[in-house]
């Protein structure tokens, strides 16, 4: 079924790009309201302590201060996935980001000054900084309700590990360690809270999940959710970081309530590094087996997650980690267990990939190790174990379409794999290597709530302009443009005549939010349903008024066409409906619910209606004397179902690849004794322009039967497997296996020295 499309598959520039390229877009930090005050938060500087006294006297005396609040001043409702967080900490601080007090003042400077003037005395408590220690008998206890420091455990299995072991010719066993990574959104965390005369609350918020946010916020600040309106100004990056409510948000509401003035809180960059959620650190112990031919026999994983002092979504990443352990390639026997433990480190949230970077780093390195053991090429062992379209995995994931093998073939071609594999030596001081990794991720949401749906309202006005009000949100990824393309395609109009409204809960219908790579698929299908209904209405009206058979009509170039004959312009037809005896408006609405299921208590079930697959090849150079790893080229192939917007898709994939490269090579929030040691871009290194490798991207179109025009989600996938591919390439280059990220020069050099590849010149000056 190939029909010619005008907008679907084209290279369509983002609709909001002109406003962004001219500086006209208003982000949250650009907004202000008359009478607005500035909020600042006083945080703990102790990782674990009892608050003995808080003296706000001097803070109140700072000129321009309107309010100073602490836990005593509010109804301090507990919230979060573990119900273990509060806007202000009542008596105990459990990590250094913990909120103790907040100030609202006329200026940011006054608010800062007052925050510093708050006197807090503490009584330090014994602390835990290593998740392994949290489970030791006699370890300090963070919460009396959890005397074992273990608020969550996960356990999944299919088949029998014993049988899998018996069928194995080779088994590999490693421990992998993944660290804290900051989202580094270029726009820092911010919120603007204001009450109207009748006590209704308007939140200008960066949330990715406006409807869940409204419900949760209402519970936290003691309001009727119906009295809360969430407006989402353009977001300066999110990547999952805005999936939860964090204490600064209810704090802004409490300050606005106390002062009866609008209150805006904008983090500093240092605060963003210290007090925004991170990617979840993990210690992954993994065993994988295969038979003599290289067919995988079993995977047995144990994951230890450092939950930090409170719980956000980081604690739930095992949902995704276990999918990769159970279902990336065909694995007959699987066991997955996870302990989530409290420590006095900062806590983690959701971050693009949601645990899959961590899981894939372990799983895909062991695939390479097994390939070596049984004498197979890394691509060969993956082809041998990759699933086909139509397969159901042991966990019950149904791969309606699966382009994994095509992705592997594509990257082999793009990277000239065989040639690159044989070309290792680049000189006495430089080694070259090439490595591959594949990935599996949800491609159409994940049904973790009762509904994973999205609503749309589409109207066509009497000038022929279409307005799509979608429940979904755009966090910079370009969903607004993709949805407009879908509407333009179905209605046969120019994309310039489509407006998308997606930023106001008082206007838009319900949606879960931006997560689980669901927007193109779920919101796309919803928009498609609404657009098709509008098309049918228009064509039906035209058939009636021109007395022609419906099936001969189509919409094209803003007109109703009968074959190549133009019957009437769209706007004329709409007016004839509006201003006739029929008095009919052209408004349609749709609610799309994907055909996925909530998993049962044993984590079985088809949680997403479709799945994304990809393979990426990294070509690296390793400097033996310095341990510097340079990524020279990345070749990527992604099963995207169907390309909706080639320009946007490439941008998503390139951005994900560079983010994955940062994860692999340089990004690490250095946390020692609970303190963040590198809260700046100087000391926390995200990839910069000179480091960007050559990136090649190929799309594999598997045309998913339920996707809009066949498309799947792709938002998270590109970031997931590059770290594994790079580690495999570094192994190919040097013969040294690295199981801990990031691959900083220091860590790599240590490994090279330990392997005898480089002479040990003694203690470095830093250690001396």
């Amino acid at each position, binding site marked *: 079924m190939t029909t010619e499309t005008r907008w679907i598959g084209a290279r369509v520039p983002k609709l909001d790009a002109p406003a962004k*390229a001219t500086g*006209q877009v208003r982000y949250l930090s650009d907004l202000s309201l008359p009478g607005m005050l500035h909020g600042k938060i006083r945080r703990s500087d102790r990782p674990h302590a009892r608050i003995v006294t808080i003296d706000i006297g001097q803070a109140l005396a700072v000129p321009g201060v309107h309010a100073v609040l602490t836990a005593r001043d509010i109804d301090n409702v507990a919230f979060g996935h573990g119900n273990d967080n509060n806007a202000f900490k009542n008596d105990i601080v459990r990590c250094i980001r913990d909120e103790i007090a907040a100030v609202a003042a006329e200026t940011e400077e006054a608010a800062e000054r007052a925050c510093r003037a708050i006197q807090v005395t503490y009584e330090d408590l014994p602390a835990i900084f290593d998740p392994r220690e949290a489970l030791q008998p006699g370890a300090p206890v963070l919460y009396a309700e959890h005397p074992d420091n273990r608020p969550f455990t996960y356990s999944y299995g299919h088949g029998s590990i014993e049988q899998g072991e018996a069928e194995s010719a080779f088994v590999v066993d490693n421990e992998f360690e993944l660290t804290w990574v900051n989202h580094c959104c270029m726009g820092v965390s911010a919120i603007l809270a204001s009450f109207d005369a009748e006590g209704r609350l308007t939140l200008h918020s960066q949330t990715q999940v406006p409807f869940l946010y409204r419900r949760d916020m209402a519970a936290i600040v003691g309001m009727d959710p119906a009295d809360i309106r969430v407006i989402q100004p353009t977001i300066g990056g999110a*990547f999952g970081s805005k999936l939860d409510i964090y204490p600064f948000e209810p704090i802004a509401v409490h300050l606005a309530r106390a002062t009866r003035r609008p209150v805006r809180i904008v983090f500093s960059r240092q605060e963003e590094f210290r007090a925004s959620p991170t990617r979840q650190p993990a210690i992954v112990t993994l065993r994988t087996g295969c038979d003599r031919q290289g067919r995988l026999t079993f995977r047995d994983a144990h994951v230890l997650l450092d939950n930090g002092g409170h719980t956000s979504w980081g604690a739930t990443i095992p949902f995704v980690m276990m999918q990769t352990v159970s279902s990336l390639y065909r694995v007959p026997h699987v066991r997955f267990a996870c302990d989530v433990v409290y420590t006095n480190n900062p806590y983690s949230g959701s971050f693009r990939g949601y645990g899959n970077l961590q899981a894939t780093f372990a799983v895909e390195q062991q695939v390479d190790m097994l390939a070596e053991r049984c004498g197979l090429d890394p691509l060969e062992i993956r082809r041998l174990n990759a699933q086909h379209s139509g397969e159901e995995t042991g966990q019950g994931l149904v791969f309606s379409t699966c382009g994994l093998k095509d992705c592997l073939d594509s990257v082999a071609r793009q990277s000239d794999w065989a040639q690159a594999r044989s070309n290792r030596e680049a000189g006495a001081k430089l080694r070259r290597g090439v490595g591959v990794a594949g990935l599996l991720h949800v491609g159409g949401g994940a049904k973790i709530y009762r509904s994973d749906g999205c609503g749309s309202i589409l109207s066509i006005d009497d000038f022929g302009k279409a307005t799509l009000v979608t429940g979904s949100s755009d966090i*910079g990824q370009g969903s607004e443009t993709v949805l407009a393309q879908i509407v333009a395609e179905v209605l046969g109009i120019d994309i310039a005549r489509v407006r998308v409204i997606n930023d106001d809960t008082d206007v838009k219908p319900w949606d879960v939010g931006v997560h689980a790579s669901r927007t193109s698929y779920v919101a796309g299908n919803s928009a498609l349903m609404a657009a098709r209904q509008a098309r049918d209405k228009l064509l039906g009206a035209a058939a009636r008024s021109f007395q022609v058979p419906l099936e001969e009509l189509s919409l094209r170039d803003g007109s109703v066409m009968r074959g190549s004959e133009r019957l009437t312009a769209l706007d004329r037809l709409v007016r004839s409906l509006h201003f006739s005896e029929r008095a009919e408006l052209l408004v349609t609405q749709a609610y799309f619910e994907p055909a996925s299921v909530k998993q049962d208590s044993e984590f079985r079930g088809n949680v997403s209606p479709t799945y994304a697959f990809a393979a990426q090849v990294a070509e690296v150079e390793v400097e033996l004397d310095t341990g510097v790893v340079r990524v020279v080229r990345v070749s990527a192939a992604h099963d995207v179902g169907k390309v909706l917007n080639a320009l946007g898709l490439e941008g998503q994939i390139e951005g994900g690849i560079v983010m994955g490269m940062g994860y692999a090579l340089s990004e690490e929030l250095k946390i020692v004794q609970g303190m963040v040691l590198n809260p700046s871009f100087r000391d926390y290194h995200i*990839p910069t322009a000179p480091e960007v490798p050559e990136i090649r991207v190929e799309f594999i179109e598997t045309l998913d039967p339920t996707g809009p025009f066949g498309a799947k989600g792709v938002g998270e996938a590109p970031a997931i497997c590059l770290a594994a591919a790079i580690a495999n390439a570094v192994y190919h280059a040097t013969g040294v296996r690295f199981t801990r990220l990031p691959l900083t020069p220091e860590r790599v050099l240590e490994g090279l020295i330990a392997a005898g590849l480089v002479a040990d010149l003694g203690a470095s000056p830093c250690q001396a």
Partner: protein
Amino acid sequence: MKLCCKVNGEKVEREVDPAARLLDTLREELRLTGTKEGCGKGECGACTIFVNGKPVDSCLMLTIQAQGAEIVTIEGLARDGKLDAVQECFISEGGVQCGFCIPGMIMAARALLNEHPEPTLEQIQYGLGGNLCRCTGYAKIFQAVLKAAQLERV
């Protein structure tokens, strides 16, 4: 103090706090919010503007240092309603995602092209080395700058 300077071609004369950062004066006094603050320490380039034709991190400059200067911000880059070639190409080549770094990135790219009208890819990479972007992976940004250079040659 009284600040006298030119911003985006227009004369500005007003009482300002001389110790305020130029970034804050632009954003809060002149309401030119196109210039963004990404770090406040000169590490990310989001607040890049032109001062007397040279790219500067406006978070590292005091307002008093702008006395008598000619300043151009992202709002002043378009001329007579026509976008600068760099802006046009950032739009057409997909250089923009969340967009927060983009005003500074475009100013840095404009500065690069002023100095190197026919830049190599490597010159572009190093020329933009002080401007961080978390969304795009920079690839489409390089493409945009190459295209803008091409447009300006013909």
